[in-house]
């Protein structure tokens, strides 16, 4: 299958290993990867800040570039939800509504794509660590992804998944919310990593780098012995 990979801006800049992990995993499964270098951002920051007009400028470019793609895979539940759920809303009542809907139908979040579309759960990965999983809100509640990453993690050799009490609680990132209301965002993040620490895990794994960026930022500042890692990196991890 020819898979078009959408690499969100912050993954491109700060978390390239998540994107690279997805590329290598999908290629090992025999698929061809297309990476549209023209694309950068999905337009969510402007959308969530109320600037829908500016968001449409960015989104339109994404839609035009991806209109001929067979399937589009995104290594972020949040950007995935933006394209899949919110583009149709963003373009409702405009001439692009139909295009937004047809793109929506072929967009997949990475873990959902592997498990639901490809029917793959064992990627031959090895990651001998105790981990806990953070459900990013957009992946969980907008896209309904809960079991897919867990099914994938269940087949990783050496990996022990310990669920935290607050797995489904928001980490407090929320895009521009984290800068507009940093005190609330930080308190939410503290509750989140506090719950993760209780599990004794070495890593917080998630299918959303944006949440992990926030949590890692807090962990680094507060010197906590816990690391964050994207699901695609874990799944791409082979024997050293």
């Amino acid at each position, binding site marked *: 299958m020819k898979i078009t990979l959408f690499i969100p801006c912050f*993954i491109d800049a700060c978390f*390239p290993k998540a*994107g690279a992990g997805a590329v290598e995993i999908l290629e090992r499964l025999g698929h061809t990867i297309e990476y549209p270098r023209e694309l950068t951002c999905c337009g969510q920051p402007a959308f969530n800040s109320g600037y829908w007009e*500016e968001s449409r*400028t960015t989104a339109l470019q994404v839609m035009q570039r991806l209109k001929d793609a067979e399937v589009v895979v995104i290594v972020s539940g949040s950007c995935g939800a933006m394209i899949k759920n919110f583009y149709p809303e963003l373009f409702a009542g405009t001439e692009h509504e139909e295009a937004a809907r047809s793109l929506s139908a072929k967009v997949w979040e990475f873990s959902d794509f592997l498990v639901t579309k490809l029917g793959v759960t064992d990627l031959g990965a090895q990651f001998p660590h105790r981990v806990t999983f953070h459900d990013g*809100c957009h992946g969980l509640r907008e896209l309904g992804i809960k079991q897919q990453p867990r099914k994938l993690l269940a087949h990783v050799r050496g990996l022990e998944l310990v669920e935290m009490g607050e797995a489904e609680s928001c980490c*407090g990132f929320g895009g521009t919310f984290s800068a*507009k209301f*940093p005190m609330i*965002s930080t308190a939410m993040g503290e509750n989140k990593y506090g719950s993760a620490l209780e599990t004794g895990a070495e890593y917080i794994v998630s299918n959303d780098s944006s949440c992990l960026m926030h949590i890692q930022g807090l962990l680094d500042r507060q010197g906590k012995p816990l690391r964050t890692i994207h699901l695609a990196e874990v799944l791409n991890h082979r024997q050293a």
Partner: protein
Amino acid sequence: MTPNAAQFKKNAITLTKDLRHRALIRTALKKYEVVRDDKVARFQNWQSARQTAAEIKWDAVNHLDTHLTEFAKNLESRGTHVHWASNAEQAREIILGIVKQHNAHSIIKSKVMTGEEIHLNAALEKAGFDVVESDLGEYIVQLRHEAPYHFVFPAMHLTRGEISDLFTKELGTAPTDSPEELTMIARRVLRDKYITADIGISGANFGIAETGMVSITENEGNARLTCALPKVHITLMGIEKVLPKLEDLALFLPMLATAGAGQVLTGYNTMYGGPRQPGECDGPEEFHVVLLDNKRTALLADPEQRDALHCIRCGTCLNVCPIYKNIGGHSYGATYQGPIGSVITPHLRGLQQWKHLSFASSLCGACTQTCPVKINLHHHLLQSRRNAIAQKPVWWEKPLFQGLALLFSHAGLFSLGMKLGRIGQVFHPLIKNTPLDPARAWTRSRELPKVAPQTFREWWQTRK
């Protein structure tokens, strides 16, 4: 920044720093979640119950005119006086008029959030009347001269010790750590008030159009005493509280109890159909129902967010909200706290004055997921942001997002941006978390992510 927004931020800073408060609320709401989940599981199918409830409410709200007229007609047929109040001022005048007409001295109230909304107590007290709240939580916050902290659990922010201290100070009772004893203290004071009160004021959980009845659900029996003992009873209710049929309560009463407090059914469920009828030996001699609009019809006129009128005030969206759990109920500065408050307050009190509440959300969607009547709460916050910005963009944000749109449309520029970021981050520690730091909102409490030595697109390039 509006004064409301500035106050909200100030409150949020204070409350998020208060670790004792955060722990107290989290513990209380953890217990709530356990009992709620237990009761949700007793529904044959909670999800289809939610769907049915949403459909009934959809009908109720989308045909509000018909249902309200039927409700009023049926109430009047048994001698109830029905009043229509367009706004808070009118509602206060109607109620003050009734109270003055009866030369009343003392007034007893059961829980009525619409009363908070129209600042009824202040108006009654200003006019010289003695007003006492009979709901235990409301009574406690009244003694503290505070607004309810939560529209279902008004005093959930207080410990037993704090309540005991309050009673000692205000009522002169001996300190106690026993919840039963604290309840008995309040009960002893309140029993006298019921007997001497001239007027009872209540809210309404539902109004039944078909039968012209006011449904009140409560756990303490205080609403029954408030509604039954004084000679005159006034119910103040929002117009959106009307349900078409009596049988609708078969779903809504257990649903409200489950979502609101994790109960199968609330302790006392009563329906009030009118004043004392000929041949009856008890009940008020006069019954007034004041129907409050106060901008609800403006919300009704918004097809996108109209479903916010479905709300049955169970408070479950507050209970699951990570924002509420960290800043508490008083920080909002609004009558209705939490997600539903953040959705409806801009409609009820002005979008520009209250838009900050729609921005003070990570849009996590826990509220929408739990709402028993399926209000699309977090999407409404998003829509309110869009509406607020369309009316009045922030002067520096507009060009910022225009600039970002330009940057994101040109991958070359974006690549250059990442390269510059890589250089910038070498020098960033010099200004990190100082007033010069453009990322200070982030770096006050968090480390910034670093631009990777090799970005994804650079990595991709090397593979080809």
